[in-house]
């Protein structure tokens, strides 16, 4: 693939999406990004979508379905919030402390989830059902089913998401980290080998258990960051998400994951997730512009339709190309 094609392929989707959405907004006398505040929101939301998508894709690409992402995010954020509040009482620096604790507890929750999987050796979709219920239960028990607010409502927290810089730094660090880990280390090479040739890789002597557990730990840590950002952005954490109330977050990551891996064909799938997240965030900002007329139900319908349409495109790409090529030929003749 030529460099030019790579660049075009990589940037095509985000640019087209941006242009279309901006055009829609302009037609109504608005902009997608109206001011600095909405730009801040845009970057923060991009970070959230990108990280969730990465966390989802790590395990899903290996055929491991993980319903527990949402519960890990919420639970680790609550743990981070409670501890940091106990230590600093919401004073300065408590956002950074909470972020650190949340990442650590997210990683621990991921570790626990991974251990359940490798010890029980039952299909991950089933262990993740159990783990989700357990984490939701713990979350409920810690919070009494209430919204956690006092612990996350302070200047430090609102300052963290009040500027795009923190989120941008997080995005940069995570993209670099994930590319480093999955494309340039032994862990990543082994991950890729196990992903597409589990049996051969294991027979060759690659240790699958630590690799799988490692994936869960990374996943948990990433969801910890998501939990933190959501807590800061929403200024609360919902503690009452029993009976799979926490899994919705996972579905929001499907569309960016598919878009991201499509973009990844031209460059790197991690970069693809970032650009896909940018697209989703642009869409989200557009919804915000029209929030007076587009309700949450309409948004979820639009998202669902986009998901299906994009997947139809992905799975019938060859068919479509063939269709257009033959049509072109006929037209030419």
């Amino acid at each position, binding site marked *: 693939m030529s460099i030019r094609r790579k660049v075009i392929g990589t940037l095509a989707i985000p640019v087209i999406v941006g242009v279309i959405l901006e055009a829609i907004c302009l037609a109504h006398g608005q902009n997608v990004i109206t001011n600095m505040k909405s730009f801040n929101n845009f970057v923060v939301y991009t970070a959230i979508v990108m990280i969730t998508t990465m966390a989802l894709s790590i395990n899903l690409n*290996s*055929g*491991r379905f993980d319903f527990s992402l949402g519960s890990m995010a919420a639970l680790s954020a609550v743990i981070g919030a409670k501890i940091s509040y106990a230590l600093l009482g919401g004073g300065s620096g408590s956002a950074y402390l909470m972020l650190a604790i949340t990442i650590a507890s997210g990683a621990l929750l991921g570790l626990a989830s991974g251990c*359940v*999987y*490798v010890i*029980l*050796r*039952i*299909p*991950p*979709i*089933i*262990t993740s*059902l*159990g*783990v*989700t*219920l*357990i984490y*939701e*239960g*713990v*979350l*409920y*028990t*810690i919070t*009494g*089913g209430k919204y956690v607010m006092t612990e996350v409502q302070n200047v430090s927290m609102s300052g963290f998401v009040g500027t795009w810089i923190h989120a941008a730094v997080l995005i940069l660090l995570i993209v670099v980290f994930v590319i480093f880990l999955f494309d340039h280390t032994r862990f990543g090479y082994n991950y890729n080998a196990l992903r597409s040739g*589990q*049996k051969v890789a*294991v027979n060759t002597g690659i240790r*699958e*258990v630590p690799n*799988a557990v490692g994936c869960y730990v990374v996943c948990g840590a990433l969801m910890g960051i998501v939990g933190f950002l959501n807590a800061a952005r929403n200024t609360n954490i919902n503690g009452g998400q*029993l*009976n*799979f109330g926490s*899994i919705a977050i996972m*579905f929001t990551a*499907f569309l960016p994951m598919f878009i991201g891996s499509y973009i990844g064909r031209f460059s790197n799938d991690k970069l693809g997730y970032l650009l896909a997240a940018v697209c989703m965030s642009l869409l989200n900002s557009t919804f915000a512009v029209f929030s007076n007329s587009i309700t*949450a*139900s*309409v948004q*979820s*319908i639009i*998202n*669902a*339709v986009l*998901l*299906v349409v994009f*997947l*139809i495109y*992905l*799975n*019938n790409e060859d068919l479509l190309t063939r269709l257009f090529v033959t049509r072109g030929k006929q037209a030419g003749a």
Partner: protein
Amino acid sequence: MEAGSEKTKQLLITLLPVLALAVLFILFCTFVKAKGYRLDIYLKTIFNQGVVLAVVATGAIFIYTLGSFDISLGAATLFAATVGVLTYNATENFPLMILAIFGTAVACSLFSSILASAFHIPAFVTTVAMLSVLSAVSAQIITTKGGALGGIGIPKTLVKPLDNPPFKITLLAIFFLVCFFVFQLTKIGRRQKFIGGNPVCARLTGIPYNKYAIIAFTMAGIGVGLGAFLTLVYTPSVTTTTASGIGMNIFVAIVFGGMPISGGARSRIHAALIGGFSYILLNNILELALEGSSAYGITQIVSAVFFLAVVCVTSMNYRTDLLPR
């Protein structure tokens, strides 16, 4: 001797879900009695809670058997009930309402499967999309039509006579027997299991996937329709959150009933029935044991641990050197 004990173990594992249900039932009765509560009402309530899940999940088994899954069934139940209520309120015709409920349920189900097969996309993804669309559309309808009541409903006198266990048990029994018949005694069930076990081989044995997927989704649709109908019989009103818990509980019920989520040869038509009631019983036992509302979280934790333990034991014989996916 080796083979003998192996067989006993096998049998034990097969019977474990049934045993678990029996043990849970006895435990539940013991608890209720020990607390001095009224067992008759409690049993009725539990049956009412469990029957909708059992019916919807039993229909869903056909989908799971194929190795596919559908998380939109809860939303479909809500949507079918919504359409049913609208139909009755527009026509005041009870049979037409029932027809509308089943028609809608089957249509929703078929739409996912046909969309998936026509455009070659994984059925799972279409069901994720359906989940959003169906719940959003239902919510829109319910809140628009419901107005000051916050929900829509049919006159309670219409379904009151039906709100009794014998009627529901009869419906459940008929539906289960039909499913059992289709699953166990006809080519359909056998072929679906085969597809779930090895879709490539199934195709090369002349079993068309799409045809059996459509049958499976139709059966699931019928289950959803019956579930929606039973929901209306229990409470003649529909709110935006009606049946919201069902979608995910189907997973738990089926696994609890001793069937692998990936379907295939080990699929069991009775898994949902047994698993569904076991799960409801378990939750209620824990609720009784850990009284006090702060214990809802703990209840869920204990029940999840129990769930994992059951799966772990029932899948004991299917371990491989590789981690399962």
